């Protein structure tokens, strides 16, 4: 987003730097690739020339307005080049330039390609300088990106940094809920729930009851959703006895097993509970038995072993794992 009007002519065509009067005194510095360069790149003319002029201003350490404008152009062509971004920051500081323009620049570049670490680092640098006055804007910006790609890793990373450094976490759990309403399979949103409850809302123990309730509803709605099961388990991190002793959990597993569809995670969770001391009742034995694929298979009195057999069939990509698990946990498998 160059504020120089001469970067393009009346027809919107790019004007070579050598034709622009404001750069007439600059001697461009070509890249010296050496005698036998490896993986040489076929640079396009505009790219090459812009970088040649950048090199000249960088070497001269010219922290001027035209240098600022040139870095805008160089960034558009080459947004991964951290030397250009770094120099831009030096120029911004030297000119004491209004940093709000940077928010607009980064937003513009993000429209082209938002999966660029340098862009996000620059955004963070600006936000750090602007402080809490930037909080609302940063949350809006990341929300915008997430509305296009709700799992955007950079956006989530930046958002987590904003919440920790600048605040604004009060509505975050609600935002996670909105995202999960749109897509209950959004693992990033589940992860953000965990982030919020552990860092801002009092921690696992304080939030466990309400979160377990929330998660079990999600599980019952879509039992094939790995994210919700992992989140549920995560709520009991470092507290296996509470995990085993919550009857709601085994009860939901049973419900899903009896429904006979999408049982994989219910079965593996049952195995997990049993490995931590849960004693399955006859109801569980019957439910697992009802899932046996073949009647000719021997009915196993051990619920856990029987569950492993079922999993080998219903979770075929992990059949090797379930066999291994069975052999490891049950001596006479």
């Amino acid at each position: 987003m160059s504020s120089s009007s001469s970067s393009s002519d009346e027809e919107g065509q790019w004007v070579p730097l050598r034709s622009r009067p404001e750069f007439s005194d600059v001697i461009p510095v070509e890249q010296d690739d050496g005698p036998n360069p490896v993986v040489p790149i076929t640079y396009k003319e505009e790219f090459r020339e812009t970088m040649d002029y950048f090199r000249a201003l960088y070497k001269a350490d010219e922290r001027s307005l035209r240098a600022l404008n040139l870095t805008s152009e160089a960034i558009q062509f080459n947004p991964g080049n951290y030397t250009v971004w770094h120099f831009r920051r030096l120029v911004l500081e030297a000119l004491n330039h209004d940093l709000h323009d940077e928010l607009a620049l980064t937003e513009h570049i993000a429209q082209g390609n938002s999966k660029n670490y340098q862009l996000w680092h620059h955004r963070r640098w600006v936000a750090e300088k602007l402080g809490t006055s930037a909080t609302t804007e940063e949350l809006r910006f990341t929300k915008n990106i997430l509305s296009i790609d709700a799992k955007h890793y950079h956006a989530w990373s930046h958002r987590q940094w904003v919440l920790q450094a600048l605040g604004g976490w009060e509505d975050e759990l609600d935002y996670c809920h909105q995202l999960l309403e749109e897509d209950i399979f959004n693992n990033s949103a589940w992860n953000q729930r965990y982030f919020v409850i552990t860092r801002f809302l009092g921690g696992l123990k304080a939030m466990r009851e309400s979160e377990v309730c929330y998660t079990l509803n999600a599980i019952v709605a879509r039992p094939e959703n790995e994210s919700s099961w992992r989140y549920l388990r995560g709520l009991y991190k470092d507290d296996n006895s509470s995990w085993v002793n919550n009857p709601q959990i085994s009860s939901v597993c049973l419900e899903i097993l009896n429904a006979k569809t999408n049982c994989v995670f219910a079965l593996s969770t049952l195995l997990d509970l049993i490995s931590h001391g849960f004693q399955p009742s006859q109801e569980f034995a019957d439910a697992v038995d009802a899932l046996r694929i073949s009647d000719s298979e021997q009915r196993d009195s051990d619920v856990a072993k029987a569950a492993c057999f079922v999993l080998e069939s219903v979770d075929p990509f992990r059949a090797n794992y379930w066999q291994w698990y069975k052999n490891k946990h049950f001596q006479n498998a």
Partner: protein
Amino acid sequence: MESEPFEREKHVTFLEMMYRLLPHQYQTQEINRLTLAYFVVSGLDLLRALHRIDKDAVADWVLSLQARPSDSDQVNNGQFYGFYGSRSSQFSPQDDNNGASSSGISNLASTYCALAILKIIGYDLSSIDSESLLKSMRNLQQPDGSFMPIHTGAETDLRFVYCAAAICHMLGNWSGMDKERAKEYIINCQSYDGGFGLTPGAESHGGAIYCGITSLRLMGFLEEDVLSKNVSSSIVNVPLLLVWCLQRQAADGGFQGRPNKPSDTCYAFWIVSVLKILGGHKLIDQKALRGFLITCQSQYGGFSKFPGDLPDLYHSYYGFTAFSLLEEPGLNPLCVELGMTDLAAIGI
């Protein structure tokens, strides 16, 4: 699908083409040219075709990208004296004034790639001036144990902890980093679901897990093959991580980087590498993975990210590593921790 051939010759030709000339679509990656060179060199080595490059020319070019302090510089002036990713971050300080901005900015990731390339082509790493490299690398380590890739300021995350650990390992010298602090950072990146995010609190991600686990392994904090040895780790929840990794094999046979995301060629490397370290890589469905990877194999040579896309160097390289992990005939075995063939890692 899974019985279709791995087109080794086409892949070698693809890499040779990239070695000679990269099309303009790669210009936005030019800051990391060394990384692109690494993909080519390591890829050719995996495909048993390293003889197709001029090793001396490669060594000369890589070494020309090393940052060296001038006589008057103190190595603790805060700058990092590693390797530049390309000429576009390389500026010689003696050219002009003494403004810090006019000097080059070398990069941890490029340094890893440079050393890896040199090791692969058989260059003796002990003849590199590693003193200023390692001393100045310590300046990149943050109070929380993470690493910044460049001294002028950048994001800090697990990727650069990995680069630092691999660099120290290759140079046989751990003075470049505080291992304990790095270990603490990695542990803090462990997520509630057993995986690792790139930063503490971030979502578990295949690439992050690779960086975390290989770093622990390289630093000596994780025993090899914990699953077979029936031991547990005090710092990593191995059973949970195992299950998380195996669950990444999706219905199309490929591996996804995170739950409920599409499969992508490169995660076959990141995830299966971790499984190999833990001793569980045989637990995957190898046939199904091969089947998926074949759909990403390009008729032009190389691999794409998703089935049917055009190939790119990054996904091609990780496609080759995945086939090596699947023990495809004609490929060299892989040292997953260092990202090169076993032979290169050992130094034969």
